């Protein structure tokens, strides 16, 4: 209970923080889109990002670069969601009609990739991150990221050919 009390104080202090609000205004939409690319579901992507902001809010005073922390939090929560979704065997909702059929097809194939390969590919080709940056985000060696990318691309090639 004492821990909960400390937590409450910290969060309330952060709630009023202009720094947090500025971060929200600057990063929210981009983070939602990144999470959406990772989890394929806008509602869940927003849940992920809102929760990530809560994490940032709780630690805001300790963070020198809350944007970097936020990015890690969003990726980490997205991956966690993907893993749980795989266990629950639930698929994301269909895309809107305006999405071109080719993009729809790629989206479906991407959703069938193992979580690590999918995360690496989204971060590389949507996020534009280098392998070393992805390694930091996914907390793994860069060699592992390159391996996931290779295998993911190979699977996409086979599925789309």
């Amino acid at each position, binding site marked *: 209970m004492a821990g909960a009390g*400390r*937590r*409450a104080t910290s*969060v*309330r202090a952060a*709630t009023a923080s202009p720094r947090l*609000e500025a971060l929200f*205004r600057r990063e929210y*939409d981009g983070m*939602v*889109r990144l999470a959406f*690319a990772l989890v394929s579901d*806008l509602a869940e*992507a927003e849940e992920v990002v*809102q929760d990530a*902001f*809560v*994490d940032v809010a709780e*630690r805001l005073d*300790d*963070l*020198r*670069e809350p944007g*970097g*922390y936020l990015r*890690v*939090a969003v990726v*980490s*929560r997205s991956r*966690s969601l*993907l*893993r*749980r*979704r*795989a*266990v*629950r*065997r639930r698929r994301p909702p269909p895309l*809107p009609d305006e*999405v071109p059929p*080719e*993009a*729809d097809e*790629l989206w479906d194939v991407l959703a*069938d990739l*193992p*979580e*690590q390969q999918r995360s690496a*590919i*989204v971060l590389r*080709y949507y996020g534009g991150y280098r392998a070393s940056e992805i390694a*930091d985000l996914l*907390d*793994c*060696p860069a060699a*592992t990221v390159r*391996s996931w990318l290779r295998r993911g691309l190979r699977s*996409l*090639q086979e599925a*789309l050919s």
Partner: protein
Amino acid sequence: MTRRTIERRLRRDLDAVVATATPQRSWDDLVARIDAGITRPPSTEDVTMLETPVRESEIIERSPHRRLLVGAASVAMLVLVVGVTILVGRGDGDVPVVDGSSPLRTAEAAVDALTGSDGEAFMAFFTDDALANNSAFFNDLPLGRLDIPSVRTAFEGSVDAAAVGWRREPLIDRSCEADGDLVECELTYQGYLSGQPELQRLELRVDGDRIVSFRQRVFPTDPEGTQAFLDWGARLDPTPAIEACAGIDWASTECGELWYDLIDQYLAEQGGE
């Protein structure tokens, strides 16, 4: 279709899809969520996400609570895939652990060693024969100073269907109590398959600064899912796991990827994504 074509499609099509996503929530929604989320217990994500920022030195000061979480997160690898009892150390290879000032301290040091390692998670499946022939593998595990001359896992009485798994799991809580030379520790961690907090009990028999026996029991939140996973794993050929993980740094890329591949393979066979 060439790799370059795929890469081009990825850049183009991902942009096209993501452009359809328009965030709906506002700053006020976030403020409401923060207020509502004040009493949330530490979750998987709470723990996991502390790792990278801390390593990047973004956190200037660490509270004891935070340090506990960080330690638990960078740790947390341990954990048997469940429903299984692991018996470690049959008494002929015990070596000193960190602190022998009391059974409790010795056991806690051993548990810290078990849960305090860093690196890629992995999982391996073994038959009993494979274990007998591969004790070097376990000696390479980051079990601190716990030397493990042999490991035998038993699953529902079958020594053939042995499964041992170690993986990165956020540790939520840990407590130890001593009764003479027997120390019982309870670890609560976030179960990978169930996503729910799961309980693990460790019984350590301590002799001075040595752990002379070690028993681990896991109480899965999702026993059926766990059972299915273990049944599945027991059918696998253990050779790749041994080749990938034995005699090398267990946190190596190959070893870690093996674990993820196995989980992916399992989930795919179950009809998941």
